């Protein structure tokens, strides 16, 4: 029981730290609902703490709760005075009236959340990458009180994926610090917490664009995807990456299509950087966000103000700088990625592997027609894309469509470079990589529904 309280305290502390960061990003903006602010605080707070732990490790400062919290005491105190002098801005969200249908959807989402917690907490860590990679590193970081990079590069210890970003292992080590020991059952609560955070932010972000009803239906759709629920309970970094990338894309899109206010772009930048800090695939996904912004700048150049161009430049510079810092650092300690590295990342090799394309497409096809994992999400996306092709590439919708197609394409290209046997690699990672942008696919479905209904409403008016 005490361990559960300590676990909850760890969540609250992460949230409190995140709350103070969020204040600098959005100030006292009332257009963000309280649940959205709390969910953002939790994930941003945890991201900041893990980055701080990396810095501590480089400075040879041992991990402890006190040491990690020390700089935040100054920031929290400073914020305390600044917050009082900061006037609230933005319009408060009006509560929508809920009918029976809405309540049923809410009940379905709540069931999925509770079931995610149950699934995570009934079984200790025991999935492949959790044991071989994330949870093992977490135990090591916690017990040694630092990140022992010398062990990560030592080939005879054979630690899996030494080069992987450290958000998940450090988040788990941080949780162990509160629990006061290695507990690979309770630590799994981190993942359903991500599930809640993602669903809450997803709903409120969509609500601004497509209204409360469609946002709720879309959130329910997302929660009701079996593969999505499973990954919220097994201790893999893929779920955290899906959360950071998809939410960063949503805020990026809000900036593009809803209001060109810096707060959305700032949030998108922070979440994109955290996606790079979660998994190497985050680098590919951040390139997609950058590409979308560049395309947006090209398509809308006539209507764009100077500060908007500067905003896009700052976003790209911040994300590229953060990624470059991480990969340069990893390279400097002697680590490199086993799939994409200077030996494998060669165009002639990819050309030689073009024969893999039918296999990759076949794997995609299995997922599209695989309701056991994906419900009908991918099927609806591709059917919708064919049926409403023009709408999908019209107005702002084209940026969502392109981001999804770029993600399919990006991962397809990745499989042209991989040195692993292609059948094996597709079988072991194919479904995980599609998960990374699954919430964007569901967002597309909700957004397209709104566009189609609006267009038909205009015709009939």
């Amino acid at each position, binding site marked *: 029981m005490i361990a559960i309280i300590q676990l909850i305290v760890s969540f609250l502390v992460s949230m409190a730290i995140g709350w103070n960061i969020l204040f600098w990003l959005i100030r006292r903006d009332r257009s963000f609902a309280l649940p959205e602010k709390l969910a953002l605080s939790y994930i941003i707070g945890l991201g900041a703490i893990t980055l701080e732990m990396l810095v501590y490790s480089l400075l040879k400062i041992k991990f402890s709760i006190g040491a990690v919290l020390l700089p935040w005491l100054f920031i929290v105190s400073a914020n305390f005075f600044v917050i009082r002098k900061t006037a609230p801005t933005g319009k408060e969200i009006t509560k929508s009236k809920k009918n029976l249908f809405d309540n049923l959807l809410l009940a379905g989402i709540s069931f999925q959340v509770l079931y995610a917690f149950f699934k995570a907490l009934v079984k200790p860590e025991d999935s492949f990458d959790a044991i071989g990679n994330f949870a093992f590193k977490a135990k090591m970081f916690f017990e040694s009180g630092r990140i022992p990079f010398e062990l990560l590069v030592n080939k005879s210890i054979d630690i899996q994926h030494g080069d992987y970003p450290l958000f998940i292992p450090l988040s788990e080590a941080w949780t162990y610090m509160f629990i006061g020991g290695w507990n690979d059952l309770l630590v799994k609560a981190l993942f359903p917490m991500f599930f809640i955070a993602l669903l809450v932010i997803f709903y409120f972000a969509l609500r601004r664009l497509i209204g409360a009803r469609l946002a709720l239906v879309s959130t329910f759709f997302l929660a009701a995807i079996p593969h999505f629920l499973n990954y919220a309970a097994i201790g893999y970094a893929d779920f955290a990456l899906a959360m950071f990338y998809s939410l960063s894309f949503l805020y990026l899109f809000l900036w593009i299509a809803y209001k060109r206010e810096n707060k959305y772009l700032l949030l998108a930048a922070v979440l994109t950087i955290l996606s790079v800090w979660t998994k190497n695939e985050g680098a590919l996904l951040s390139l997609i966000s950058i590409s979308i912004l560049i395309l947006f700048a090209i398509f809308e150049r006539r209507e764009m103000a100077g500060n908007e161009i500067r905003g896009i430049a700052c976003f790209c510079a911040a994300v590229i700088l953060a990624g470059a810092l991480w990969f340069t650092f990893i390279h400097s300690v002697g680590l490199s990625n086993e799939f994409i590295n200077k030996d494998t990342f060669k165009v002639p090799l990819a050309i030689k592997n073009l024969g893999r394309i039918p296999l990759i497409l076949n794997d995609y096809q299995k997922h599209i027609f695989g309701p056991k994992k994906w419900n*009908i999400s991918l099927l609806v996306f591709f059917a919708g894309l064919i049926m409403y092709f023009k709408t999908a590439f019209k107005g702002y919708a084209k940026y969502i469509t392109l981001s999804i197609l770029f993600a399919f394409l990006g991962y397809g290209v990745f499989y042209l470079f991989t040195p692993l046997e292609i059948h094996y690699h597709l079988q072991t990672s194919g479904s995980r990589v599609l998960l990374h942008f699954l919430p964007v696919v569901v967002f597309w479905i909700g957004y397209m529904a709104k566009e189609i209904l609006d267009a038909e409403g205009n015709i009939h008016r």
Partner: protein
Amino acid sequence: MKNTKLLFRIVFITWVFMWLLFLVRGMVKVEIKDYKNLLGKTLEEKRAYVTGKEFYEFILFCEKVIPGNATFSVEAKYDDSMDYFRFPYYLYPAMRDIDNPGYIACYKVKFSKDKYSVAASLTDDKYILKRNK
């Protein structure tokens, strides 16, 4: 407009149907059996269940014999390829050292090596070798 709304309704109903179908199917086929075996168990018992009782018994045996500051390697006939990763995970702070281990955990194999002698054994094919001084 009517057709579009009908299409949306079909999508919604199919989505809910698939959700319930695979939720119940997953529970009935696999998960309920797991939950029955896991609920009410201690953390140690849960670890024994997910890794396999025989394997976990050997892990506990290794924990007793191999000191935390020592290095080890494993010679094993793995029932599950994940066992390769479970050894370093559970035995940490003892570290795997493939090239120069202080101890060799032998699991379901008969293995011997020069300059190593049996430090402790659980059964005929489950024992730990220690490097001679």
